[in-house]
C-alpha cells in the first residue's frame, strides 16, 4: 500500500457489480477499502465476510471513517437516499446505473452533489470496453464518413430479485439495459436522443413475470442518426454467456460491427453441466474504477457526470411512456 491511500466505502451490495468494483479497488496499491454498509444487514455482512472487510451497521458509522469516496450499488430506488447521506461527507460518489428511478430524484442528486462540492460519477463501465474505445477513436477521426444508422443490443439474462420489483428497480429490462447503450451513443457522438418509440413486453420470455422482460426501442439522435436498441432479458440460464453489447453501424464508407465482449474461451464442463464462454478481454469495471480513483486523487472533474446518468434514464422513462401511449415520445421530457 502506498502512503496516503484513497479511502473508499462501499454502500450496499444489492447490485452484484459491487463485488467486481471491490476486486478492482483491491488491485490498486493506492486504495484502501474501508468497509461495507448495506440496508440489508445479512447481505452486507455476507459481502463483508467474502471480501474480508468490516461491516458497519449504520451508514453514518461508515461515513465517519474519513472516507474520500463511496461506491453506491444499492437497489435503483435507494441510490438517491444513500447519495443524500454521503454528499458533503466524501469528495466523490460512484453511483451504479441507472442513476435513480425518477427524473426528480436524479435532479435532486445532481443538485445536492453540486451544492456540497461532491463529485458525482455514474457507473457506465461499457465506455471502458476496448472495442468501444476503439469505436470512439474511429468516430472522432471521422473514419467512416457520414453514419446513417446504428443497430444496438444489450441483451442479458433475467436477474430476478429486486431487479424485477417495479418500485425498487423502477422497471425491468428497459430501465436495466437502455441506460448503458444510450450513454454510449450520447458519448460516442456527443449528441442527445430527440425521439423514442418503444415496444415493451411483459413476461414474454419469463412466464408469469410481472415486469417488462422485452424492450425494443427505436430512436432518433440529434445528429440525424436513427437506430434501434434491444434491451431484452433474452439470454436463458443455459446460454453460453450472460448477454452482450453490440453496436452495428451503417455508414457512408462501409459497415462496422462491434461485439464488445467477444473475447472468450469456450469451456464445456461436466461439473457445470453446460458449455460456457469464459471471458478473457480487458476488465471494463477495472477501467471504470481506475477512472473514479484518478478523479479523486488528481481532483479532476468526473468523466461520466450525473447529467449523463439523468439523460440516459430519461430515454428509458420515455420508452415506457411510448409503450403506454403507442406513439413516439419527444425528448427532453417535460418535468
Amino acid at each position, binding site marked *: 500500500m502506498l502512503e496516503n491511500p484513497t479511502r473508499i466505502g462501499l454502500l450496499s451490495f444489492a447490485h452484484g457489480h459491487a463485488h467486481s468494483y471491490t476486486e478492482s479497488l483491491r488491485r490498486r496499491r493506492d486504495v484502501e477499502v474501508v468497509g461495507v454498509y448495506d440496508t440489508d444487514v445479512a447481505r452486507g455482512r455476507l459481502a463483508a465476510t467474502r471480501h474480508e472487510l468490516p461491516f458497519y451497521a449504520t451508514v453514518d458509522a461508515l461515513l465517519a471513517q474519513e472516507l474520500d469516496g463511496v461506491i453506491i450499488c444499492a437497489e435503483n430506488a435507494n441510490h438517491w437516499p444513500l447519495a443524500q447521506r454521503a454528499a458533503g461527507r466524501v469528495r466523490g460518489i460512484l453511483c451504479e446505473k441507472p442513476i435513480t428511478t425518477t427524473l426528480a430524484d436524479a435532479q435532486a442528486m445532481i443538485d445536492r452533489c453540486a451544492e456540497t462540492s461532491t463529485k458525482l460519477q455514474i457507473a457506465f463501465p461499457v465506455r*471502458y*470496453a*476496448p*472495442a468501444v*474505445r*476503439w*469505436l470512439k477513436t474511429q468516430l472522432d477521426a471521422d*473514419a*467512416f*464518413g457520414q453514419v446513417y444508422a446504428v443497430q444496438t443490443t444489450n441483451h442479458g439474462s433475467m436477474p430476478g430479485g429486486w431487479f424485477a420489483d417495479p418500485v425498487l428497480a423502477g422497471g425491468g429490462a428497459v430501465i436495466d439495459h437502455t441506460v448503458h447503450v444510450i450513454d454510449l451513443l450520447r458519448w460516442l457522438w456527443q449528441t442527445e436522443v430527440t425521439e423514442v418509440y418503444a415496444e415493451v413486453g411483459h413476461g414474454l420470455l419469463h412466464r408469469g413475470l410481472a415486469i417488462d422482460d422485452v424492450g425494443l426501442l427505436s430512436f432518433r439522435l440529434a445528429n440525424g442518426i436513427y437506430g434501434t436498441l434491444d434491451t431484452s432479458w433474452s439470454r436463458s440460464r443455459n446460454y453460453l454467456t450472460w448477454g452482450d453489447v453490440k453496436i452495428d453501424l451503417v455508414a457512408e*464508407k*462501409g*459497415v*462496422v*460491427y*462491434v*461485439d*464488445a*465482449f*467477444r*473475447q*472468450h*474461451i*469456450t*469451456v*464445456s*464442463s*461436466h*461439473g*457445470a453441466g453446460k458449455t460456457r464462454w*469464459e*471471458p*478473457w*478481454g*480487458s*476488465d471494463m469495471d*477495472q*477501467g471504470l474504477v481506475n477512472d473514479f480513483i484518478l478523479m479523486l486523487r488528481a481532483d479532476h472533474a468526473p468523466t461520466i457526470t450525473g447529467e449523463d446518468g439523468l439523460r440516459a434514464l430519461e430515454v428509458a422513462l420515455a420508452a415506457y411512456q411510448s409503450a403506454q401511449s403507442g406513439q413516439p415520445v419527444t425528448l427532453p421530457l417535460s418535468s
Partner: protein
Amino acid sequence: MKRVGIVGAGNIARVHLAGWQRLPVEIVGYYDTVPAAAQRFSEEYGGQAFADLPTLLNQVDIVDICTPAHVHKESVLAAAGAGRAIVCEKPLARHLRDAEAMVEACATAGVPLFVAQVVRFFPEFAKAKAAIDSGAIGKPGVIRTTRAGAFIQHPVFSNFDLSGGVILDVGVHDIDFQRWCMGEVERVFTRSLTFAGIPERDHALITLRFTGGAVGHIEVSWAGPPRHWRTRIEIAGDGGLLEWDREEPKPVTQVVANEAGDGHIRTELSPLAPDDDPYAAELAHFYDHLTMGTPLRVTPHDALMGVKVGLAAIESARTGKPVIIAEFDERE
C-alpha cells in the same frame, strides 16, 4: 526509479520499449553491435547510445536483452557478472550448453533472470490455464495448440543454424504453454519439413507425452500463405473441454472503403486495454517481481526446459525416433 538498458536495437526492442514506457522506470539507453541501430533508438526514444556493453551495464539496474537467441549468452553472462536483473528474449539460447551456463551463472550471481516467454501473458492463454486450475475440465489429458504463420526471409530466423527454425523459435512458446498446463515432458516425437530441403518452408507436427501421463500435440508453421497467422488451443480433461481459436469472431469487424476509394477492406480486431498488452504485461510482471517479490510466472527452469524440449523435438525430427527428455543431450 529503476534504470533500464536495452541490448539489441531491433523490432522486439521497440515492442519492449512501449511496455517499459508504461512503467515508472528510466530508459537509460541502448547497446547494439551495429552502432547506428543504437543511435537510431537514441534519437527516436531518447536515452543514450552506448559504444559497448560494459558501459551500459554500469549505468542500469535492469538489462533487457533483445538480441537473437544465438548471441544471448555473451550478454547474459556479462549482465550476471555485473549483478544486473535480466530480461532476456525467448528462446533463452540456441544450444543447450549455453542455456545451462546462463541459468547457472544467474543463480550463482543471485540475479533475477526472466525469459520473455510471452504466451503466458496472452489473456486467452492465461484464461485457459486459469480454467484448468479452477478444475473446470477436471484433470487435463490431451492438449493441442497451433501457432502457424508464413515464412519470412530473415538473416537470422530463416537460418536454421542460428535460430533452430520454426521448432525452436516458435515451438518454444507452445512447449512452454503446454508445460505450464500439463507439467514436465517425458518424451517428444516430431515430423517436420525442417530437414526436407524445401526452400522457404518450415513446419512441424510435434507429439508430446508428459510425465503425468497426459499427451500433447503442437503444430508450428512457417509454411502458410503471406500474412497468415493462426493460433488455437484445445484442452480436454476427464471433466470437460476448453477451446479457443483465433479464427473465431472478434469484437470488431469492419468493411470500410480504402483510401483510394476503389475498393473495401475487411478488418477484424481484438483490442485490449494498454496495460493488458501481453508484452507490456510481461515487463510489468518482472517489475513487480523486482519491487514487490511477486513470484516469476516464467522461471529460469521454465526457460531452460523450453530450449531443451525444443532441441529434443529437433533431434526427433532429424532421427525419426522419439527422444526421452531426461536422457537427452544435444549433439553439437
